[in-house]
């Protein structure tokens, strides 16, 4: 007699999310961290036309009311026209405030003193100028800047340090890109925004996946397993390509510094965040 053989597959923690639950949780986060803890009920965010800032705009509008959300479009002269029009779709859908502030003059004002700047340096200058504008707009409006960086780009170090990562609150920083897609679809972010290839739009025809050398779907799966402590051979055993695993792990291991505050020389027994530990305002 031959008995049926039931073979359990290798266990793999899921990246699926309950989007309705995630939305409720992140809206509560925004209300609590902004209104209750900081007493600020207005949000300002840079609306690029991409999915990350679109999702954050939706979450802010639901949590704070669209009348309390200020979306700022910050185009540079090389930004694609579709970025502006996609941002407008989101504004139209939500009824949030919108303003367009060109950063070309400010960025080029510096870059004319840096004729040797390559694409990376130019991109960093744009990102930092956008954050400068965003913080000034927050001061002007009594609004809190809200961050739009996702977990995948944070882990891959695919952002400009002290630019994209500076806003004091970020509702999506613990969501992988594929989870951002799922939540954005659930909240009704326009298909044109959800379905287009993600791009930092710092150069013509730039795409995130082209820059990173791996698709978000593959990267997220590997990142999830790395963060849960799986070794490379265990990740490969689950069907990931060894070259992809190597690429992702190298990026994570080489960018831990970008996910921390500046390294400060410790010389006392009261060093801030080393001995003197106060995680939240009292």
């Amino acid at each position: 007699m031959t008995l049926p053989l039931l073979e359990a597959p290798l266990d793999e923690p899921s990246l699926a999310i309950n989007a309705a639950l995630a939305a409720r949780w992140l809206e509560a986060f925004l209300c609590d961290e902004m209104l209750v803890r900081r007493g600020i009920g207005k949000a300002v965010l840079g609306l690029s036309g991409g999915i990350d800032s679109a999702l954050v705009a939706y979450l802010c509008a639901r949590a704070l009311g669209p009348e309390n959300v200020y979306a700022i479009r910050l185009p540079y002269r090389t930004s694609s026209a579709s970025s502006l029009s996609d941002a407008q779709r989101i504004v139209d859908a939500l009824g949030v405030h919108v303003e367009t502030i060109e950063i070309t003059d400010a960025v080029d004002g510096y870059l004319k003193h840096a004729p040797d700047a390559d694409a990376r340096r130019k991109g960093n200058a744009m990102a930092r100028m956008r954050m400068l504008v965003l913080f000034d707009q927050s001061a002007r409006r009594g609004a809190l800047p809200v961050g739009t960086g996702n977990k995948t780009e944070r882990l891959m170090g695919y952002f400009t340090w002290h630019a994209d990562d500076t806003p004091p609150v970020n509702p999506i920083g613990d969501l992988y890109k594929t989870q951002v897609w799922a939540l954005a679809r659930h909240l009704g972010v326009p298909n044109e925004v959800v379905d287009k290839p993600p791009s930092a739009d710092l150069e013509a025809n730039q795409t995130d996946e082209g820059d990173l050398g791996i698709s978000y779907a593959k990267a997220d799966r590997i990142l999830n397993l790395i963060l849960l402590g799986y070794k490379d051979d265990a990740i490969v055993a689950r069907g990931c390509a060894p070259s992809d695993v190597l690429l992702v792990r190298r990026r994570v291991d080489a960018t831990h510094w970008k996910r921390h505050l500046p390294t400060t020389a410790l010389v006392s027994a009261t060093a801030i965040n080393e001995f003197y530990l106060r995680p939240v305002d009292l």
Partner: protein
Amino acid sequence: MPANLAAMRSIFEQLIPKAPELIVFPEAALTGYFLEGAVYELALDAPTMAARIDEQWRAAGATKPCEIVVGFYENAAGTFHNSAIAVRCGDPDGVHIAHVHRKMFLPSYGVFDEERFLTRGRRLGTFASPFGTAAILICEDAWHAIMPTIAALKGAQLIIVPSASPGRGLCGEEELESNTRWKAILSSAAAEHGVYVLYAGLTGFEGGKGMSGGTCAFSPRGDLLASAGPLESCIITVELDRREVDLARATIPLLGDLSAVLPDLWLDEDIPVTRRLEETS
């Protein structure tokens, strides 16, 4: 702290018409959980904490005594604990501390770092509550199956669990995976030992960590009697009947069976505690 004491008083005002006999608040209920070094600034000694709770109970207009359990950071003459106090409030003879439980399992992994700032409790005690013998387990205390077991062996018919649990896991069907895990643990403890379990979960975000609420109660059969949703600040009222404990234990006498077998288990020389004692002797 003053604002949270005022909030406590307004909760009492809401409850007093219902003549409650026992009220349970979450872990670190008046300060928030993730204090790190600020523990040393906000911790109180047990008598001061008892007096503050009693003041609120009386100020709310209470005319009858009530037992009130509140999680707090305790300053015990310079030794700091994550504790929960059971206070008999509104008694004509004055405030009476029925019990102080000091959290024994201080989570110090991942997002948690309690042992860096706090000293663990050394004893799991029981006390006489309005509903018979009770024990308090604070948060991770209850995740170790041996804790409700020992509480029940020491006579507990009611286990009170003040908690501050940062919610995590968004794959859940209806609630966070951490809430689902909690319910499974609490239900299992209640059903195995035939005890009521009252769980009070802190709510609100602290530096991005959302305390997941999920306040709930389980019958001695392990059935969920009532439950708040994740993050939901609310009051849950439950009627406890000690005869339910008797019925549950009569139907499935696991606690009695354990009492009989326990000596054999405990004297097993392979259990690490026995080995440690031998090594140090």
